[in-house]
């Protein structure tokens, strides 16, 4: 039976005197109790589709044709008031970002009660405060927040990201909708927490007999949470079919490209980077860093960011520092660069800067949107390091050479960052790092702000550059599947300490530390074969290292580390 039927939907946005079509003839359906995933990259129109179903389109959007029917009801023919009534009862959305979805000055219970009170009123039902509270407690238990009373009275900041995501799911479930729309749930969270959230959504869908429309760019997530897959690109659905069919035998080149861009965890496609045995460049021995607290009363104590770090980065290798947010990996990288000083221990820099360079190391930041000055052109950005490394006569030629190195047209020198795509901006950031002639480049989550296909092109570029320029990389990331293929050695960090170190092949084949195993097993993978090869984690280990379902502890947010 079909619950949701989208038929020939055409939509456009207008602004600044122009109109741009964002959806082209989008047709699909979601059956009762069916799980459908909508895959697409940034700007493909997947979120717009969800908004059209919910009826929350912005004012400059117009529907140019087509229809959306929910349970036989044509949504575009309903009055505003009738559509309002459907929100939360017919379908609900699970929001993407649990960290910014709550008003910090209201308690969690207030958020839930407001939604319930107004939804009841819209439906013309009268409910007492006590009765609403009982229903809210029921719903909180349903999303595995066992200590519902405590969560009800908590302030948003007292709950960890995972718990807040659960509350967001509870918000969507308050009125027993028949369909859930999940917009990239858990992508703002660590991989282990995301895994828990996906399990929860799956269980709820199964237990309550809900339909699910999962919007995501992560193909691994799709494999876990969908029966049928829709692939969207530039506002068109380019491929759709049952999960197994699309994943095992994709028809479209675009789908195949997307699948190929996902770094494999196990299997024949996995790449092992050669290990370097050259001389060490940077050695850290017993390094400890304590962030001093600035305050009137608690001077002297501090936040222990990292402890007892022993690392050697050899020339020519790609050293990976993996860990979840707050694990201290950024602190370690900044100490390697000399941007932070250690509290205890020894950092020996044995590598010498290249001829004409001021520093041994340069950094490529996570978000190219903030690491490039929005008011300066590419040429102006590149001119800063070149002023130190080149004589004026050679600068123009060197700029052109750098852009060619990062595979950008020379004409891009006169562009401003907002004229470039995310991947292009990251290439400019890489070019800027190269311009300073470093021998070591710190890559701080260099691809986490990019789509997966763009990630692949940037990673390939980095590997080529290392080959041709003889660079050494230290990469910081939480994305273990990326690091499996990119690093020659990796270290896993947990709460400021290194719990495991070795070549990726060793670590992934037989992880010794249970946290490493938990981390690896939480990564969403593309195939059942890979799933089977993941290390097994006992429930006891899961409970020890992951944010657990039950009461959950209020996770203290690490300050100043990430």
């Amino acid at each position, binding site marked *: 039976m079909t619950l949701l039927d989208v038929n020939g939907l055409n939509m456009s946005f207008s602004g600044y005197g122009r109109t741009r079509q964002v959806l082209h003839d989008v047709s699909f359906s979601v059956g009762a109790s069916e799980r459908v995933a909508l895959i697409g990259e940034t700007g493909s129109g997947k979120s717009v589709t969800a908004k059209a179903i919910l009826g929350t389109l912005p004012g400059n959007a117009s529907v140019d044709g087509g229809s959306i029917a929910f349970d036989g009801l044509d949504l575009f023919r309903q009055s505003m008031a009738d559509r309002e009534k459907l929100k939360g009862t017919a379908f609900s959305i699970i929001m993407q970002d649990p960290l910014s979805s709550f008003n910090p000055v209201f308690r969690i219970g207030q958020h839930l009660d407001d939604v319930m009170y107004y939804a009841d009123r819209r439906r013309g039902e009268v409910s007492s405060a006590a009765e609403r509270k009982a229903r809210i407690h029921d719903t909180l238990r349903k999303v595995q927040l066992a200590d519902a009373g405590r969560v009800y009275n908590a302030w948003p900041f007292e709950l960890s990201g995972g718990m807040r995501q659960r509350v967001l799911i509870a918000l969507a479930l308050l009125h027993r909708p028949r369909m859930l729309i999940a917009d990239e749930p858990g992508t703002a969270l660590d991989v282990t927490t995301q895994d828990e959230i996906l399990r929860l959504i799956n269980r709820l869908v199964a237990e309550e007999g809900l339909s699910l429309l999962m919007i995501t760019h992560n193909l691994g997530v799709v494999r876990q949470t969908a029966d049928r897959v829709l692939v969207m690109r530039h506002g068109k659905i380019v491929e759709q079919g049952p999960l197994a069919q699309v994943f095992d035998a994709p028809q479209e080149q675009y789908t195949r490209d997307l699948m190929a861009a996902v770094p494999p965890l196990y299997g024949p496609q996995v790449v092992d980077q050669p290990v370097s045995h050259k001389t060490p460049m940077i050695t850290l021995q017993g390094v400890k860093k304590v962030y001093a607290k600035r305050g009137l009363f608690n001077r002297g104590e501090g936040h222990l960011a990292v402890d007892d770090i022993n690392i050697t980065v050899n020339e020519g290798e790609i050293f990976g520092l993996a860990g979840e947010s707050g694990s201290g990996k950024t602190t370690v990288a900044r100490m390697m660069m000399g941007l932070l000083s250690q509290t205890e221990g020894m950092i020996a820099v044995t590598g010498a800067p290249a001829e004409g360079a*001021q520093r041994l190391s340069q950094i490529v930041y996570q978000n190219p949107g903030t690491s490039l000055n929005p008011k300066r052109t590419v040429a102006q950005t590149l001119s800063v390091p070149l002023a130190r490394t080149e004589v004026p006569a050679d600068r123009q030629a060197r700029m052109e050479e750098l852009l060619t190195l990062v595979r950008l047209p020379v004409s891009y020198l006169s562009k401003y960052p907002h004229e470039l795509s995310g991947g292009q901006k990251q290439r400019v950031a890489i070019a800027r790092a190269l311009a300073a002639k470093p021998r070591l480049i710190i890559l701080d989550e260099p691809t986490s702000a990019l789509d997966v*296909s763009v990630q692949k092109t940037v990673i390939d570029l980095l590997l080529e550059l290392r080959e041709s320029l003889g660079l050494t990389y230290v990469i910081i990331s939480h994305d273990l599947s990326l690091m499996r293929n990119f690093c020659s050695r990796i270290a896993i960090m947990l709460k400021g300490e290194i719990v495991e170190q070795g070549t990726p092949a060793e670590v992934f084949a037989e992880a010794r530390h249970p946290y490493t195993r938990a981390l690896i097993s939480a990564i969403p993978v593309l195939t059942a074969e890979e799933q089977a090869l993941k290390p097994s984690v006992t429930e006891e280990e899961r409970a020890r290292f992951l944010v657990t379902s039950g009461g959950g502890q209020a996770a203290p947010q690490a300050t100043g580390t990430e």
Partner: protein
Amino acid sequence: MSHLDTTDDTQMTAAWMGWYRFSRNPAAIIGAAIVISVLVMAALAPWITPFPDHVGSVVDFRNRHAPPSAVNWMGTDKAGRDIFSRTVFGFRVSLLLVFGVLVISVPVGAVLGMCAGYFGGWAEKIITGLTNVMLAMPPLVMALAIGNVLEPTLINAMFAITLLWWTWHARLVYRVTVSVANEDFIEAARLAGAGPVHILFREILPNCIAVISVKTTLDAAFVILFGATLSFLGFGVKPPTPDLGSMVADGRQFLPEKWWEVLAPGFAIFYATLGFNLLGDGLRDMFDVEA
């Protein structure tokens, strides 16, 4: 490069989008038109006014206190001088005051604000402390005090306003700098070997230009109004040079019978102030900044 990693060809430049917002804002267009008309009138005053010589020490007692007519469009004052001509010339003094105050206080405020925001520490403590002290002083009291200690002239009034005015810009630029200073691109520039002068003027300043230009436009309106207030109170230019505030002060004695003597200069103050305020609001919407 992969076919997946391309920019949108239909993308619009920020400048074009800003201009689009500006041009669709009637208030902003009216403001711009008023400001341009004021600038043109001030520049071309000797050629567009019927009695340009009435700016000097002309006395025509037979024609004093004449009501508006075909010859004297806005009437004449107590010395028989054409009020319309004098009002148009009065814009020159107002704009001179605006220019004199802002050309000093805006750069000084911007540089101090950037230093406070970027260097932090003692620079921040001293500059923000000084800013707060200066902001606590009522500008009118300050101007009157300086005028009484020195001489009640336009130059001294300008000096007094300038002494206080930079604080607004310092505070504004400080706020923008603090939010920009922790961005990755500042650290990246430092790692690339850039010195503090480069970072302040090439990396941070371009990010402040929008707020500075909005604030400066709105300031122009304030300075015109403030200058008129001061000259109304007797801190004007030396007679017979016309200036809007003292023209209102002179005409005030003959109210309500000789109403036209305050009407033209009063309206002129209103007109110029309104123009700069509308333009400033329009620029604020265009740049999408808070100033």
